[in-house]
């Protein structure tokens, strides 16, 4: 045994801080989370399979994952534009816009949910113009999309923004001096630098969208097979005291969360390697 492992470390508090961290994390997070898998594994296989592949549940996966994907894609495009505007341009009210980008993090989801519903309902500020055009947002799948765009926007802006800020202007100046046009510079010099951040932001927004509940349920209308999201399926199983069914669906969602978390960690490590900064 090397002596380094047995002697007290230079800085104090290693045992205390790590011990406390691990105990707290185990008690609050790990043990309760493991309950989902343990309880799900106690189910008979066919009951489990039946619960997670019921037509209504399958429809909810399609909606939750599909809309989260679409919302993340929309946010990647518009989040990049917003980050670009915030870093590259001066305009009145910029500080305010910058601060309010974080609103979806700070605003309780239930508040966001009823506010979006009020906006997009048939008689709402936006709904009254959209419905005559045949676009029904509230109480349908489009409502889910709108809510997830709201929730996911800051993820993209806040991952892209620092990378844009840190980017050396010399890169662009070099490209320009070599004869590149502005669009070529963006396409071949700036975009490759931003790519890991854009993908990370996309993945973060997607992961958040898949699990989102509060902002969605008010505006979704929750029509079976049409606009029910997966977290709502868990709630409705619970309300019917179908704990087994709720647990089965939750285990599917948890696995999806873990996979996304792994993907995001991988992306962030990639981004850190690319730019020598941790995301």
């Amino acid at each position, binding site marked *: 045994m090397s002596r*380094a492992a047995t002697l007290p470390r*230079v800085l104090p508090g290693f045992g205390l801080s790590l011990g406390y961290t691990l105990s707290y994390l185990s008690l609050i997070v790990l043990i309760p989370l493991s309950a989902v898998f343990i309880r799900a594994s106690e189910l008979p296989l066919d009951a489990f399979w039946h619960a997670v592949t019921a037509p209504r549940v399958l429809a909810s996966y399609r909606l939750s994952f599909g809309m989260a994907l679409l919302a993340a894609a929309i946010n990647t495009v518009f989040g990049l534009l917003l980050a670009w505007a915030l870093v590259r341009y001066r305009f009145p009210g910029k500080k305010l816009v910058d601060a309010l980008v974080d609103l979806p993090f700070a605003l309780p989801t239930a508040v966001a949910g009823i506010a979006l519903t009020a906006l997009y309902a048939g008689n709402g500020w936006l709904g009254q113009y959209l419905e005559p055009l045949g676009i029904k947002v509230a109480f349908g799948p489009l409502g889910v999309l709108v809510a997830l765009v709201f929730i996911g926007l800051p993820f993209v802006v806040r991952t892209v923004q620092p990378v844009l800020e840190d980017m050396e202007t010399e890169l662009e100046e070099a490209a320009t001096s070599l004869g590149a046009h502005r669009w070529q510079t963006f396409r071949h010099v700036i975009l490759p630098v931003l790519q890991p951040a854009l993908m990370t932001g996309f993945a973060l927004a997607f992961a958040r969208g898949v699990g989102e509940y509060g902002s969605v349920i008010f505006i979704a209308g929750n029509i079976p097979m049409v606009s029910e999201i997966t977290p709502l399926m868990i709630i409705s199983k619970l309300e019917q005291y179908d704990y087994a069914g709720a647990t089965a669906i939750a285990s599917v969602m948890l696995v999806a969360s873990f996979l996304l978390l792994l993907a995001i960690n991988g992306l962030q490590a990639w981004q850190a390697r690319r730019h020598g900064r941790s995301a």
Partner: protein
Amino acid sequence: MSIQVQNIQKAFGSFIALDNLSLDFPAGELVALLGPSGCGKTTLLRVIAGLEQADSGRVLLDGEDASDTHVRERQVGFVFQHYALFRHMTVFDNVAFGLRMKPRGQRPSEAEIKRKVHELLNLVQLDWLADRFPAQLSGGQRQRIALARALAVEPRVLLLDEPFGALDAKVRKELRRWLRRLHDELHITSIFVTHDQEEALEVADRVVLMNHGRVEQIGSPADVYHQPATPFVYGFLGAANRFEGSSSAGGIAVGASTLTGDAQPEHGKVVAFVRPHELDIILQPDASGIPARISRVLTLGALTRVELEGQADVAGQHFDVELHAANPLVAQLAAGQTVRLQPRQVRVFAQPDTAGAA
């Protein structure tokens, strides 16, 4: 206080930072740990301080085994490479920190602390900065405050990690002289780490040359410069021309030519080093010596540097010669000319397995 390290071994993963290293640091001396980056010098300094635990081996302070003594109890002063000044404290509070951390019984009164801190700030000639924050100081000032802070607790030894590394050339020269004077005043056993050979040779009483976690040579600056013990030391301390050949009766055979000069006897394959100012240029192209062609003649101030390309057996090698600009020979040198090179002083080493010298 004397410091001894015995058989220190330290690895980071598979990288061996210190390889069974033993050293004595006599009391009262100012010693430089000199070597290229990654040679283990900073690790050694941190092991002596107790900031790093060696995997095996002992550190003796004043003859007592301190290996199991916590940094806090070792009574060492440590000056960090980037100073590590507490950024939220004034200069005064930084210097007073060590005194205020003492257990209640040993802690001096605030008045006493005040007197002591001002005394130290006067010693480093920065008393007028007492109320500033570290961010408001220049690099050289921060360095001196870091030193005052380390001295405040009356350490038995002073350890400095690359003390001038982060400073610009001019400030560095001033601080070097200042550190030397301070050491002469205080006589506290001090070790500093540097990768700059000029710094080590100019400031230290004794230089320890390190490479790959091992000690290559220990000695006074004059010793290590004039009597380098290994090819590595020769190459590291100043410019060198390098010849490979074999020992023969008349000198060292390098291809068809022979190097004469004061060569120490060695047998078999050897590496010969010659300092640029100890290499003569002979204008007769058929004289004995190494054939070379002048590629450039450059006079800067009192010195003329001649750059040459080896010919025939030493083709592709590059040589440098230094002459006094006043030397009448200089006027006769021109680029393109073919000449012979003959050393006045040669340092010969048996051919090492790996030619590690610069």
